[in-house]
């Protein structure tokens, strides 16, 4: 069976590198891109199972990117990273079919366990 292919979108290169390593370590195939435009291109051209989007990005942000993707792809599973939980944003994004919101940074707990759970949920779907 082919590995589940994950598209990781974040404008922070450092974050992108580290997360890519971790997710690959979990056994997924990861394509990492640094902006929404590139992400849309990837989803268009290659078979992608799960998209992990950063909520806040310069230029095209996470929600706009997702809206664009939804125009031609309604089934792809989406997980969103956010630096700071904003209730309004959560409600808005949920309507676009975001499976989970992962706080990029939470004191004490770590993002990775939540991300792992979310990925497992996305795979089942």
């Amino acid at each position, binding site marked *: 069976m082919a590995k589940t292919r994950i598209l990781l979108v974040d404008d922070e290169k450092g974050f992108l590198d580290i997360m890519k390593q971790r997710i690959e370590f979990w056994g997924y195939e990861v394509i990492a891109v640094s902006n929404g435009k590139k992400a849309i291109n990837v989803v268009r051209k290659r078979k992608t199972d799960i998209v992990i989007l950063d909520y806040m990005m310069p230029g095209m942000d996470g929600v706009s990117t997702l809206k664009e993707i939804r125009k031609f792809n309604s089934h792809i599973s989406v997980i969103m990273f956010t630096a700071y939980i904003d209730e309004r944003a959560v409600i808005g994004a949920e309507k676009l079919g975001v499976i989970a919101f992962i706080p990029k940074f939470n004191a004490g707990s770590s*993002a990775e366990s939540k991300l792992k759970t979310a990925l497992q949920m996305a795979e089942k779907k």
Partner: protein
Amino acid sequence: MTKVLVIDDEEISRRMLKRLLTMAGYETFVADGGEAGLKIFKKENPDIVLVDIEMPGMDGIEVLGEVKKIFAQTEVIVITGHGGMETVIEALRKDAFDYITKPINYDELKITIKRALEKQRLLIENRRMHEETVKQRDELKKRIFEIDVLYNASNAISYTLDYQQLLKLIMESLFKIVDYDICASLLFDAHAVNITLKPVYAQSVGFVDKVKKSLIESVSMLTGENIREKRMDAYLLPSDFGVKPKEERQFDELKSFFNVPFIVGSKTIGMINVSSCKENAFSEGDIKLIYTIANQASSSIERLQEVITAEKSKMESMVESMSEGVLMLDERGDIVVLNPKAREMLGFGGKEEVTSRVLNEKMKTVNLDKVLQECQSKKHLIVKEIIIPGKINIILRCNTSLVINAKKKTIGVVSVLRDITKEKEVDRMKNEFVSTVSHELRTPLAITKEGINLILDEIPGKINKKQDNILTTARDNIDRLARIINNLLDISKIEAGEVTLNRNLVDIDALVDKTISSLKPQADKKNIKFKVSYSPDLSDLYVDQDKVTQVFTNLINNAIKFTIEKGRISVTIKDKDKEVECSVNDTGIGIPGDELDKVFDKFHQLGRVSGAGEKGTGLGLAITKKLIGLHNGRIWVESELDKGSKFTFTLPKIGTEILLREYLNNGMIQAKKQKITMSLMIISLTNFEQMKEKYKTKGIIKILSQIREIVTKIVFSPTNMVNTYHKGETVLVLLKARRRDTLALEKKFKKAINAHQFIIKGKSVKAGVNFGIAVYPEEAQTKDELIKKAKVSLEEREKMRNNNG
């Protein structure tokens, strides 16, 4: 020249006397009988009359009587020839000066005339002296009176600084001498006319208006200034003299009056008036006296004004030069004070004339009128911010309070205006800065933390124990930094007013349980035991679950932090009548007394134990206090060193009705501000009574909570919502929703709720709902109207549904 009249019927005697007397230097007139003599007497008015007693026709005695009748001071000397002593005695009794006998001894006559003249002179002198004495006495009386008035007036100035008192004294003093029925005075300045009236008798009150009018007219005429336009203040002093006995007066018409102006410097500042219902009631003397009094009053008033002006100018120059705007209006809304800074703040030009009307218009446009009205109705200090629109909007903080005089009477309202535009801007910039910086800090922190985690998870390769330890310490400190940033963000959001409560019915006991169990691992490490006393009968509270959890977490976390091994933490929930009192009590190190009032300040760190111990951010309690404040609760602390600390806070109980009204209120304000519509929607369970019977309140709560969740998922923007369990309703306040939008939402809600499987006691239950809608401002303008309208629409639809089957 002394005039002598001789009346004698004997011609020889007449001629002799005339010659003799003329020679002696008297102007002499002669008459041959009584009638003729009296004629001459009336014409010439002689000083001495010589009259023969025995004359045909009118005799000497009769002439004497007539003369004395006409002018008593004339001395009459009778001449007797043949008459006996009886007639002489009669003449003397009738006030003849003396008598001489015929034949006349001329020397004796001359002496007698001289004596008579001397007597006359003495009499005149005597009378003059008497008159002089009387005059002096009167003068003295008046002087004493004037001094009395002056004395009273100066007392009034020294003790009262009160025109009314001064005028009252003058009027009462005047009454001692002048017989008036009403005394009135009028004083005026640039703004107002002050009239004081004192009717003497209870009956004379009827004149008051007439006198007032006459005074105003007189003063207007005298000064050429139309004082009718000014504000009129009239004071009626009580007529405490009662009714004058005996004298009957026609109390229906003023028959005489007299006005005397008050002149200060060379300017007429008013007038005093005395009026009477008697004709010619005032003598020349009275008028003179009134003039004197008016002059004295004028100088008293002048001095009074000087004193007041001196006092006022001190205050005025202070107010004028204040950096805050000061605005004072009297009870009628007229300007009392409007200092230059207030003029500038309210946008008046330097030379623009600001009348009370202009100012009131201005206040309306910036809502300052509402602030003053609120202060007048609430009768205490009101602190409000208003915005003066312009190129750059100016924000003014208005501290407004009532002005109360020494007699505890409200005489106006004062507002002190402070320009806080810059402070607000700085505040906003600070908040923006904090939030930007925090966001910016977060990203590198996240990357660092994830990097460390990656290594700790040995994904890039194996690490040894030492490396693991160091990296773990590094990661813990990144977490600490993150906590500080989170707190900073929280507090700046609260301070910026960006945090609103998402109230929902919350079981406080359950919330406490959950919080404690999440913190238990930390407490276990220090062997700290928990003791919780619940309040089992307490019904659920409308609070923001996350925020109250944060409050308990902060307090319990602190308690754990500052409690030494094997300590105890008690959490108590007490149901007080109108609020719930929660406390967290520890057996920790306590807080020193001098720090107690600072613990809730920002960046104040609780007393550290020397050596080890977790380091806080100094923001936890500040946030806690603010979160409780958002709920309109209070928080306080009691502590004893080495014994422990007890933090107690309250959460007011809010009924669904109040909450709904609060939501509606906020919604209406937002709608007005943004010029958008707002809708009220009631979602009501159909067959509520049967359902309640079947599933009990607990079941209803479950159903309504789930409806709430369904609704939350469908509505895009956050919505204010309450559940009324006793009615089986969920009520929503939807912003930016026109009727069309609300109906569309209703469709979605209905579909979702109908499709939903409600699980009660393990059984799947279906629930039907009905809707009532009202839209602001199109369909209703007030809260009550909105609620009523929505209920009516709900009932109508229920009827329709029932009719349809």
